[in-house]
């Protein structure tokens, strides 16, 4: 059976670049109403913690069009499979209210379309998930049971 690099070994920089990719063509929507594109974001906060319910990382991204305006929140899980990974939207179609509600999610990640090849190539080539021969990857010790802020910044053109 083929092995792959665990999601839990992603570095902070790789976590940020993963968010950059998955929200790059960002069209976070609620009930079909487009909220904003990533190009409009002026505030972004990336938090992660151990997914607990599955092997992997849960991401929570808060973002806003204006720094001081109300933040929208979107969340997804990267889960380790046996020889693959899953990108799982955190929403009420998938998880219980007890799990979803504390996250204060306002945008459904499932509403953000992702280019299949680009996403796969990113994980295969940039993050080298399927290449264990280059360097030994170690667990990112920042990823624990409590939220860890990987990035919080004001985005300026």
């Amino acid at each position: 059976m083929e092995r792959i690099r665990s999601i839990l070994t992603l570095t902070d920089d790789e976590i940020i670049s993963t968010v950059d990719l998955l929200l790059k063509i960002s069209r976070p929507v609620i009930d079909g109403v487009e909220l904003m594109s990533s190009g409009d974001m002026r505030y972004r906060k990336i938090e992660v913690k151990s997914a607990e319910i599955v092997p992997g990382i849960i991401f929570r991204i808060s973002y806003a069009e204006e720094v001081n305006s109300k933040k929208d929140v979107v969340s997804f899980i990267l889960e380790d499979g046996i020889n693959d990974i899953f990108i799982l939207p955190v929403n009420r179609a998938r998880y219980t209210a007890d799990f979803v509600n504390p996250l204060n999610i306002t945008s459904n990640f499932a509403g953000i379309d992702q280019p299949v090849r680009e996403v796969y190539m990113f994980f295969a080539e940039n993050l080298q998930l399927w290449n264990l021969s280059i360097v030994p990857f170690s667990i990112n010790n920042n990823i624990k049971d409590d939220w860890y802020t990987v990035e919080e910044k004001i985005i300026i053109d």
Partner: protein
Amino acid sequence: MAAIGNNIRDVYSLTNEEIIGLVDFIFPDGGGNMETVMYNRKAMKVVIYRKIEIVPSFDEGSIFCRVTFGFSDESKSLVTGFELLSNLDDYCFTSLSKAYIGDAYFKKLGINFDFSAFNIEIRALYKHLEDNLKMWGDEFAYYEQFPQNPEMMKVFNSKGLGSYIVQEVHSPVIEQIS
């Protein structure tokens, strides 16, 4: 003509057999993966019915695939679906969820289950599109190698929210598929 790059295949050229193969990949065991991904729902026993339809999308270069499952212990069918959208030199594969297509269109399509509750392995999905469906090629005007699916085009060229049935099977045919 769909808005696609030169080196990818037109989604309108997918044959009925290829669409069935894609659905089989997404819903292995004739839909038997459903109970494993749902929280707080009773297991849905045996799939005894499956219908696959192609519905015109509101995007150019895109198809909506609607899949209906019937279960041995449920009177209500489960209707779910996904979009395969060509995007220059790539494809977006997205659940037909309320979040994506809006509540009104979600209801109009008759969908009652958000496909985003399913687990899709990202490498396996890419490999299926690449190896089985040959969605990417190196040649210029690669898309010209694949004629458009006449049944699909007939629906797309008609006005309204029509659809065509790619496959409709009852048990025990489902068991043969899985």
